[in-house]
């Protein structure tokens, strides 16, 4: 699959182990105890959305459900809170995957932003219905930081796929 419609480069297929390694690294980042710092990006949905768009046949709602549960447990949140939000995110990301890939990374990030916002909105609604207190509007800052990270993440996660098929000793990469 080509990175954008402008590039004529043909990428290598994504390796299964790399997809899941990146998801587990995101999970580890989500476990870093940052306290109540506002605007900490939500790593797991970011990487999930990336693979849902790039590899919709491999990473989808089932993966989102499992990783959502793992985040729920690590963060001491209600069981199913993150899982629910991530499953909806995965559904939306998979359904717009074909269209988003035609845009350059910045506009892709603008596609992703409302989905992250919806993810957080679902979690807030679930907890408010369950009787928790509203965490304040700063809570939603994290969807914006996550969306801003889409562009560097885009290049980082595609790096292994940029490798040439045959190794050439005269070429640096």
């Amino acid at each position: 699959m080509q990175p954008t419609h402008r590039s004529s480069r043909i990428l290598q297929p994504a390796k299964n182990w790399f997809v899941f390694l990146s998801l587990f690294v995101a999970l580890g980042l989500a476990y870093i105890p940052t306290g109540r710092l506002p605007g900490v990006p939500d790593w797991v949905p970011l990487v999930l959305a990336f693979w849902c768009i790039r590899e919709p046949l491999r990473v989808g709602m089932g993966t989102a459900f499992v990783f959502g549960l793992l985040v729920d447990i690590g963060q001491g949140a209600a069981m199913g809170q993150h899982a629910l939000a991530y499953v909806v995110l995965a559904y939306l990301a998979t359904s717009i995957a074909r269209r988003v890939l035609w845009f350059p990374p910045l506009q892709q990030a603008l596609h992703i932003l409302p989905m992250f916002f919806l993810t957080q909105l679902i979690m807030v609604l679930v907890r408010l219905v369950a009787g928790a207190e509203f965490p304040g509007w700063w809570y939603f800052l994290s969807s914006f930081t996550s969306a801003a990270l889409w562009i560097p993440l885009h290049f980082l996660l595609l790096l292994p796929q940029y490798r040439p098929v045959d190794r050439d000793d005269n070429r640096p990469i």
Partner: protein
Amino acid sequence: MSLAGHQSPPVFKQGPTPLVRLLVLVSVCLAMLVADLRFRYLEVVRQGLSVATWPLQMAAAAPVDFVRDAAVYFATLVEVQQDNAELRRSQLDAAQRLLRFEQLERDNAQLRELLQMAPAPGVRSVAAEVLYDAPDPFSRKVILDRGSQHGVAAGMAVVNAQGMIGQVTRAYPVQAEVTLLTDKDQAVPVQVARNGLRGVLFGAGLGRMELRFTLSGVDVLPGDRLETSGLDGIFLAGLPVAEVVSVDRESQTFAVVLCDPVAAVERTTQVLVLGRAEAPPSRPQPQPQSPALRRPERKG
């Protein structure tokens, strides 16, 4: 599988459509949420999965620990000296209080002996350290570095040097989750130290607490100290909890009583987990041989 419709049969088996999968997973999530938040059925699942994710959690907490340890290491000598002086002062103060306490304890023991009562039930306690705030922004919880292996169990009270800070709500094998007093769902039975008036204290958001269900005519004044009443059989009686900040008697029936916690509930690191008061010893069986030794039975 009739082909009566206008759709062609599928060439590739793709399983259920995405929408169906979404609906199934969403309903599973909603069922889990209800089971967890309303009925607390999923504690076993949570325990099991938390053991699996524990190494990853420890690895994630390592950089934060490192930064914190480094900050502590580079603390200046002046600060340590100041602390030392202050500690000496407070030790003198504490020694005085300890003397008085010992005296009171002796008196108490003698009085109890006089009344032929059983000795006061012993209290087990576990010293613990706060590892970090739970990242869930909807509630106020902290994670301790002691768990069920060290004798911490759900329901135990957590105190620091000044007073109560919360209650253990989940005990994992090597960690425990403490819900702070300022959490919206945390309730503590208290009484006003001045006149013994009882009430229930709830978290009110923004680090405040509220004494709910107080009739507007009752005798509560700003500055009153609230302590645990021990009525629930979980918390020990007499632990300082909060101080009344404002009393608003505007409404017809109930007064709005806002309180501040006595202890620095959200900024404490060293805590003590207090075990439940042990169950009272069972009543001795009546012995027909020596009726003189039989204790009078309690009514009700």
